[in-house]
């Protein structure tokens, strides 16, 4: 049981709603800082957002961080494509 305890303290538990929430909140804080610094790709900001990056990396699993970071970059590019896809979906539904 002690083994689970140590694992829990160092890594967030994905099955816990609370831990997920904590991860998302620290991600949003970090991304808000990046937005303010006008940086799209996480990691390009230098030391500007260090105080929000720490909690983000503590509260989220490495795979989640990679995923969120990649998605942030992709989201920028996909804005236009998604809007177009939505229009097409609506058109198809009305046909």
């Amino acid at each position, binding site marked *: 049981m002690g083994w689970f305890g140590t694992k829990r303290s160092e890594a967030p*538990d*994905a*099955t*816990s*709603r609370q831990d*997920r929430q904590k*991860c*998302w909140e620290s991600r949003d804080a970090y991304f808000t800082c990046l937005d303010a610094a006008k940086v799209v790709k996480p990691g390009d900001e230098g030391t500007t957002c260090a105080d929000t990056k720490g909690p983000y990396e503590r509260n989220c*699993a*490495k*795979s*989640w961080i990679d*995923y*969120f970071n990649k998605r942030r970059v992709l989201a920028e590019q996909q804005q236009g494509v998604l809007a177009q896809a*939505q229009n097409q*979906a609506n058109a198809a539904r009305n046909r």
Partner: protein
Amino acid sequence: MSASSLSAPSFRAIASSSRRALSARHAFPSTVPRLAKLPTSSGTRDKSAVGVFTPKAAALFAVTGAALFFYFRSEKDKLQEQRRKEKEDQVVGRPQVGGPFTLTDHKGKTFTEKDLLGKWSLIYFGFTNCPDICPEELDKMSAAVEKLDKEYGPIVQPVFISVDPARDSVPQVARYVSEFHPRLVGLTGDYATLKATCKAFRVYFSTPPDAKASDDYLVDHSIFFYFMDPNGQFVDAFGKVSTEEDVVERVKKEIARWEGETGRKV
């Protein structure tokens, strides 16, 4: 040689018959004067027909024509609208989604496709280490089921099926589902059974077969959740764009249809 000598007389026969036809036509002119009298009689008939065709009749004709035109056009519109509505949620042939499976539920008990019979079900495929889409979809599903519970009682069963056999053990799944709908059933199994189940449900997932429980990775997978009827037949699938209201509306519609056909809600 004999062929050409045979064909020659027959040609002559045709020629003579056509000449006879020509002479027969020459005989007709004697009847023409009699035919020429006809125009006068038909002319009087035309006159009487024109006599009936007064401006009043013309107006009546135009009005009737216009009325008929608009009537048929509106009927056509109505028919097209009706067809469109029917088409809206008509299942064009039942897709072969679903099938037999044997998995383990979050309490450690065996769970098969037979446990879903006699109830409507919403089935989501995901994994407990899913960053954000799975929990969002499961929250949406849980909220929809909660609303349907209030309306009908517990006749819609929410189900979560793992696509991450290496990490999603029974206790892991149990912890995960406990924070969603109270009746949410979490199913897991070994790689082969989950792969087979996903194949039956046309779900794609990318977990490597040799992944270890301690690895930190994400699973790429289909994120639809399925709506199945009490016979275990596929009804519809909901994606990320469907809202909780969409799901509730769709399920209600289908339950109403089911009730109309069978007299029962399940």
